[in-house]
């Protein structure tokens, strides 16, 4: 459910990963997901772990949502992030105070509708659940 945490024994550096659909033939990441590779048209797409760290490119707080679950008192922060390996994603943003250029890591979590979604967290922050997120948002 959460992004995975790997300890690389030699460097002692903690690396977070998320799983994204990736082409077996050319390694192109397919996000949003595709059944045929966006680059080489291969049918062989499998989920592979990739480095979950990146930077925040743009941020916003949704003040007017079409879905009640996002109507929280201070609005619902989202962001556009770019992973270090280049993939760009629109994701939930944990901390609305984070601004453009901030270093982030992504974590995967399950939302109440059963969708696997991503949230951008400060690099040093531990993994959270959707329930933790809602508690934080309702403060």
């Amino acid at each position: 459910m959460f992004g995975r945490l790997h300890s690389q024994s030699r460097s002692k550096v903690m690396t977070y990963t998320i799983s994204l659909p990736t082409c077996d033939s050319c390694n192109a990441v397919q996000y949003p997901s595709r059944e045929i590779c966006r680059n080489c048209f291969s049918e062989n797409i499998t989920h592979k772990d990739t480095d979950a760290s990146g930077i925040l490119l743009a941020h916003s707080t949704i003040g007017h949502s079409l879905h009640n679950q996002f109507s929280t008192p201070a609005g619902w922060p989202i962001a556009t992030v770019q992973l270090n390996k280049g993939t760009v994603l629109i994701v939930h943003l944990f901390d609305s105070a984070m601004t453009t250029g901030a270093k982030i890591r992504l974590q995967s979590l399950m939302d109440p509708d059963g969708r696997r979604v991503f949230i951008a967290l400060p690099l040093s922050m531990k993994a959270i659940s959707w329930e933790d997120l809602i508690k934080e948002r309702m403060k």
Partner: protein
Amino acid sequence: MSSLQKTGFDKVALVAPVSIPYTKISDKSAHYFFGRSLKELTLQANIHKDHIDGIAVSSFTLLPDTVISLTEYFDMSPTWIEQVSLGGASGVVAMQRAARAVQMGDANIIACIGADTNKKEGFKELVENFSSFSSEATYPYGAAGPNGVFSLITQNYMDKFDLSRKDFAKICLDQRQNAQHYENALLKTKLTLEDYLEARHIAGPLHLFDCVMPCAGAEAFLVMSVDKAIELDVPFVEIAGIEERYNAYSTDPVQYRGGWSIFANHLFESAHLARSDIDLLYTYDDYPVISMMQIEDLGFCDKGKAAEFVKNQDLTFDSPGLVHNSSGGQLSCGQAGSAAGYMGIVEAIRQLTNSALGNQVSRPFTALISGYGMVNYDRGLCSVGSILKAGARL
């Protein structure tokens, strides 16, 4: 990509500009707005519906029906039909396809119509299932619809070019002033800078007056040969150039430019016109940042300088210089779904044939209509542009 040597659009005429007045909500179907448009087109051109042998349509709410359904609905038997589902690029693209069909003799009189209804909860349903990518990768993140993506695009543009919210106001204020003189505009209340800045928060830097109001309505026009327009004795406009580009700059992490910058020089060259020759500019104004992007990428100012460009001149219909979105655009008229992609063309035809609805610009000769559309995931994928000129009777 190799450059194309396109054939021009000589001897093609646009006539009968039709706007079916918008309503915020409607319990009618999209078919109703298509039918009203067809009736108005025939009245303006003084033709019978059987004379229309081509139909090009755009609509989000016509589904599950399509253009073929409309032929049966209205007892018509055309030789040529087309459906263009490209949102804010639909009008220019429908016009291009229709113009080619007329040039090639596939049809004589083609009705181009963008029409949509707006039932209660209709906008929510449209947004929730807009595309497979957006259902998977944007809607679950705040369910903000287009406001979410465009708030991120706007924030990125502000960061990149060191702008504040105030820099987006001029587009909205000038358009509201235009709307006060256009009889069909839904939003006519005078808008001040203070009103703009203090408006209700929507998403990120976007507030109420940066966003269009979804509504129901239609925009339509006829495409035919110049000879046919003269035979029918109807005022007409000619096409000086059309360009299209799709999924341009796809590796930009966040959209801050579009395909217009790739084709703009060719568009002006093919029309034998300079930027300074353009009297009327119609950008697709779903958000002010997108209008500013088009102004830059079409070459009216340098990249990142649109805020300064619009601040330093009067863009209203009664100004002596470049007039921008003379009817108030979507920001003041409302966004009637796919009709929004036809709005600029229809208003340009009215202006260039001296038949504006209360907001006539003084003796315009040329118009540039720019289209933008289809946020499939995180950016609009369509960039189109067309230059129209007042028709010349030979």
